[in-house]
């Protein structure tokens, strides 16, 4: 998978590029709009990360030109402008997703995974990580063959962690995807923490090795216990 990152802010670009490389993506970086546009046209990428405020050629302009030339590469916009107007404009011009700075890196990774996965509908009926299993049809959860009873919210939470197993999920992602908070400002971080704590009590406490880990300052990750 190769990704073109068009971003003029050097520090942000470096962080994104090395983060993506660590995840196993091949990354090409363009520091100006002109360069980004040239690269996007001349080479094939699986995905474009596009900053909006760029020197030489505006991000929205690049997007428009690309779509006019019928390039269907998925485009994820990264921007500090988060008014509804900007968002709608970006999506109207054919962006596939929109992420407002400052964003959490796990969130970026999750969006990229989602965009790259798009089109391939993998209907999963069972999620499994180590000895933790979840049946999405019967809504049964078990660890080491032992059934665990979860509330609806806890079930959704665990499903989300399992689907993103091995990847960190931020509180913002949980707030948006599980609690369906439209606004990142509503103070429900505490609520999330309490639910995670309760989930741990049921999923981790009775067993030897914990699977749900806190990544301080970022969020949570569910990992198979190291053998």
């Amino acid at each position, binding site marked *: 998978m190769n990704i073109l990152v068009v971003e003029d802010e050097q520090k942000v670009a470096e962080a994104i590029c090395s983060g993506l490389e660590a995840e196993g993506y091949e990354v090409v970086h363009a520091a100006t709009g002109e360069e980004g546009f040239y690269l996007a046209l001349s080479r094939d990428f699986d995905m474009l990360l596009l900053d909006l405020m760029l020197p030489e050629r505006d991000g929205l302009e690049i997007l428009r030109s690309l779509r006019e030339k019928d390039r269907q590469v998925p485009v994820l916009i990264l921007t500090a402008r*988060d*008014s*509804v107007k900007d968002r709608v404009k970006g999506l109207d011009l054919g962006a596939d997703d929109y992420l407002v700075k*400052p964003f959490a890196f796990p969130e970026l990774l999750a969006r990229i995974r989602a965009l790259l996965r798009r089109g391939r509908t993998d209907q999963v009926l069972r999620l499994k990580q180590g000895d933790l299993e979840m049946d999405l049809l019967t809504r049964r959860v078990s660890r080491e063959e032992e059934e665990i009873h979860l509330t609806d919210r806890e079930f959704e939470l665990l499903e989300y962690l399992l689907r993103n197993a091995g990847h960190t999920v931020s509180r913002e992602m949980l707030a948006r995807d599980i*609690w369906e908070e*439209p*606004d*990142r*400002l*509503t*103070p*429900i971080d*505490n*609520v999330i923490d*309490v*639910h995670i704590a*309760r989930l741990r009590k049921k999923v981790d406490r009775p067993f030897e090795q914990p699977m749900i880990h806190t*990544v*301080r*300052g*970022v969020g949570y990750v569910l990992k198979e216990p190291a053998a």
Partner: protein
Amino acid sequence: MSRRPVSIRVFLTLWFAGAVAGVLFVFALGTYSLVRLNLDHRLDERLADQAEGLVNIIRDNRRSSSIRRDIDDVEESEILPLFQVRQDGEEFFTSRDWRHVGLDEALGDVSVDSSWVWTSAEGRRFRVHTLTDIHNRTHNTYAVTVAEDVEAAMGTLRSLEAFMVGGFLVGLLLALAGGYFLAGRVLRPVDEMATAAEAITARSLSDRLPVRNPDDEFGRLAIVFNQVLERLEGSFEQLRRFNTDVSHALRTPLTALRSTGEVRLQEGGDVEQLRETIGSMLEEADRLRVLVSNLLALARAESGDMAQQTEELDLSALGTEVTESLAVLAEEKDQSLSVEAEGHVTAEADRDGIRHALINLVDNAIRHTPEGTRIRVRIFRSEQGDAVIEVEDDGPGIPRADQERIFERFHRVETEQHHPAGAGLGLAITRWLVSMNGGRVEMESVPGEGSTFRILLG
């Protein structure tokens, strides 16, 4: 630099002078006509008298010769310069001046008593009066014609005209000068206010305009202006405090971020320690993010640039949903969190906004009341018809000193317990969200007994 209100002053002066000129003109015209009429009348009377006098002289004499002699005397006395007497249609006596002027041409039908005006070839105008009489002795018919130069008789009128033109001009000049002076006097307070207002800048907003007489128009203007200044000063003060608060609020997490990083860099450490430090720094970064997003949201709310989707909102359901969502927090603190709805209460409002506002209030109640307390959420319709969501707790209450300012940005109530979360923006945001939906937030609090926050939607 003082700018004079020249145009208004000139405008007033011209209006004033114009009015005075109009009055003077009408008055002069009236006087002139009256005097003229009067003079005309007197001239007529005089001529009639003179003609009659001549006729009487003729009557008093028995013979034509003595008549001629007496008339000759009349001419010599120079009382009557212009006259002619005709006997039976023939010229009988003509004064020298008459002949000199050539008044014969003025004569028309002298057999009838009449009076008319004749204009000579040189343009002189004469009033002419004829009286006829039949002598009771001689039975001759005498026609006496007297005339007088109108211009000479109207001499008074000429000097009146001169006086009036002069008086008019002098009056106009006086009116102009007086008007200019008066207008300047009247406008002086405006000028002073302008000068004073110009001296007022953002730095000296505490200055006020002088109010000379609070009851006149300018006094009222100055008072209103001062009230505007008062409000401006208030908002400037707020803004200044806000800026200080923002810098302070930003500086705290920034300092933590920086010193944590610096200390770790200096001390070094193993991977686990580095992870801890980076995590701690990320937490501070997140605090900064929340703070900046909140400030941005408030700025948008204030400039009205916020997406609103108004719908028929079921407040009872919303209250239940929010309470259930936050119930876990109350459980952790062993608090009882209950919700009761009196009937089906709805309001036209933006769902996300009101939900956010309510979450803020309930979250505040849970955070600021100790363990084991009771928090009640009630949804009802007030007697005034407002849809009300009420969040009531029996916590420590809010100190009286803080009650006034609790909805201001960055205002935090100092308590013994330290609540690390929150920058003091929650209630400000709550109030904005509700007011954007045309509602208001009320607060009642008795220290030691508890607080009640109410969202009222019209």
